[in-house]
């Protein structure tokens, strides 16, 4: 279809084949998250896909499009899956519903549906929720403290559907590593002391480094399958590491290491699964490099000096905005002209 053609250089796959491969690549990371967060991830996953398919069907019917082929092209499932792992585990049902409403209805169908949306739907859903519900969107449980044995099924239902107040979260929600660095650096604590906190692991946030390695595994498999090209992940992570490295070399007591930036938060998930969305990313090879390097740059800027601990969603949306401009100036010259 309209974008499979430039996501692979060999035989053109159709949308559902591409999307299925992306879903396979998401499985290892998701299984790890499931191990860490138990029921909370499962409810996220079921709710996201349920609301996603529901909104998609309603919008297709309203726009008088054939429902079945579009529902089964898996694109909405990829969006829903990304939001299911991006929103904190044990998210209340209405948060997931609102996120999917923004993603599917506003960011995708009001712009004309798959292939016409200028902004990454999942990231629009995420950013709208982060701006509107900062409390709920940053209430991540500590990995393993909220696994299957720790939080029971009934308590999960209470948290997700019972309208439990955010106060009841304090029991097991914990600041993520990026969050801790941000708030503690403001109080002028030295980085070495901050690293000693138990939320930090050997690469990034404790537990999260494994999840990020699993995303990396899935992403590399996607590269091997030629579903995505190397340009976007390489430029994305490259620019993040380069800038983080520069500041880290200048003052390692003030700025966290490039490795920490890679393996905390959503950098790797963003580089392989989010920024590579063929509809909203730049389409020319040079354009892809500029687009992805811009995302890496904005992530570092917002993480280090901005008001939010992580910034993949905002950075992707900012760069989505300039994609038409980038594409315009990076058109490859037609051979012979």
């Amino acid at each position, binding site marked *: 279809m309209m974008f499979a053609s430039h996501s692979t250089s060999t035989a053109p796959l159709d949308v559902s084949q591409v999307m299925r491969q992306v879903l396979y690549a998401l499985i290892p990371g998701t299984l790890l998250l499931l191990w860490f967060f138990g029921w909370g991830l499962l409810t996220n996953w079921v709710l996201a896909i349920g609301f996603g398919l529901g909104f998609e069907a309603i919008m297709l019917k309203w726009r008088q499009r054939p429902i079945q082929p579009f529902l089964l092209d898996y694109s909405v499932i990829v969006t829903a899956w990304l939001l299911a792992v991006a929103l904190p585990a044990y998210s209340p049902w209405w948060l997931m519903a*609102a996120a999917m409403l923004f993603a599917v209805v506003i960011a995708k169908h*009001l712009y004309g549906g798959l292939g016409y949306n200028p902004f990454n739907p999942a990231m629009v859903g995420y950013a*709208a929720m982060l*701006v*509107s*519900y900062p409390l709920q969107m940053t209430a991540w449980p500590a990995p393993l403290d909220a696994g299957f044995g720790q939080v029971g099924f009934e308590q999960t239902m209470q948290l997700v559907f019972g309208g439990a107040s955010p106060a009841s979260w304090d029991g097991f929600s914990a600041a993520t590593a990026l969050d801790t660095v941000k708030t503690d650096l403001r109080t002028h604590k030295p980085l070495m002391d901050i690293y000693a906190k138990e939320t930090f692991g050997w690469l990034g946030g404790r537990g999260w480094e494994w999840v990020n390695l699993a995303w990396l595994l899935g992403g590399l498999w996607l590269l091997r399958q030629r579903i995505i090209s190397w340009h976007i992940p390489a430029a994305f992570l490259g620019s993040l590491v380069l800038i983080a490295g520069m500041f880290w070399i200048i003052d390692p007591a003030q700025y966290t290491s490039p490795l920490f930036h890679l393996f905390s938060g959503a950098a790797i998930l963003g580089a392989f699964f989010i920024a590579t969305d063929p509809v909203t990313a730049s389409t020319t090879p040079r354009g892809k490099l500029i687009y992805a390097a811009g995302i890496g740059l904005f992530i570092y800027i917002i993480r280090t000096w901005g008001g939010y601990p992580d910034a993949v969603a905002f950075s992707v949306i900012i760069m989505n905005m300039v994609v038409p401009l980038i594409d315009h100036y990076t058109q490859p010259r037609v051979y012979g002209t």
Partner: protein
Amino acid sequence: MIKLPTFKLEPVNLSRDEFRSLSLEGLWRNNPGLVQLLGLCPLLAVTNNVVNGLGLGLATIIVLLASNVAVSAVRNFIRQEVRIPTFILIIAANVTIIDMLMKAFFHDLYNILGIFIPLIVTNCAVLGRSEAFASKHEPVRAGLDSLMMGIGFMLVLMVLGGMRELVANGTLFSQAHLMFGEAARGWVISFGKDFHGLLLAALPPGAFIGLGLLVAMKNSIDQRLRKPAPKAATVAAAPSATAGEAA
């Protein structure tokens, strides 16, 4: 010596059809908020709730009406070369009056609307009507046109304000007492304390998204109306279609 034209009352014969078409023009077909997209600054800035929208909408209606009747009355005395500064002077005088009146009688609301009351001077919807309509028509028509444009603008302000208030706070008509006195405190419609308001709707992006949705809704209604009766629509839609594209 320049010979000034003499002022005389013009005969007005406003037919029923013309009345209808002038009203429809301002309220729907050429709505300043939805079609001309004029006066976006106040439109987006103060529409946090219905009452703010109503307050600024009323102020704009009064300014529009008073200014354009005045412009229309003196239109034969104004030289072409200086007409825009003159219009602005007339509008500014009216805005100053409204500004002082609101400060005196609706002080709390005035504090909320703040700079946007004086800024009505720069509202392109007002100057636009002076230039496009009032300076070419006699006072009665100019007044009717301004009134309908003003009401159309106010309705957009109120609907957008209502949408944003509902989504962000789960209430409607909050702060009504600022305009209607203490008795209006009970008018607030609330949708429960458990309502998880979407903060985004109250922030500036919410205003842009909301206005975008309203414009889309208007266009889709127009499209639906045009389909079953193509004959009646071609006559009515011709001027608005060009205005819509220009906006």
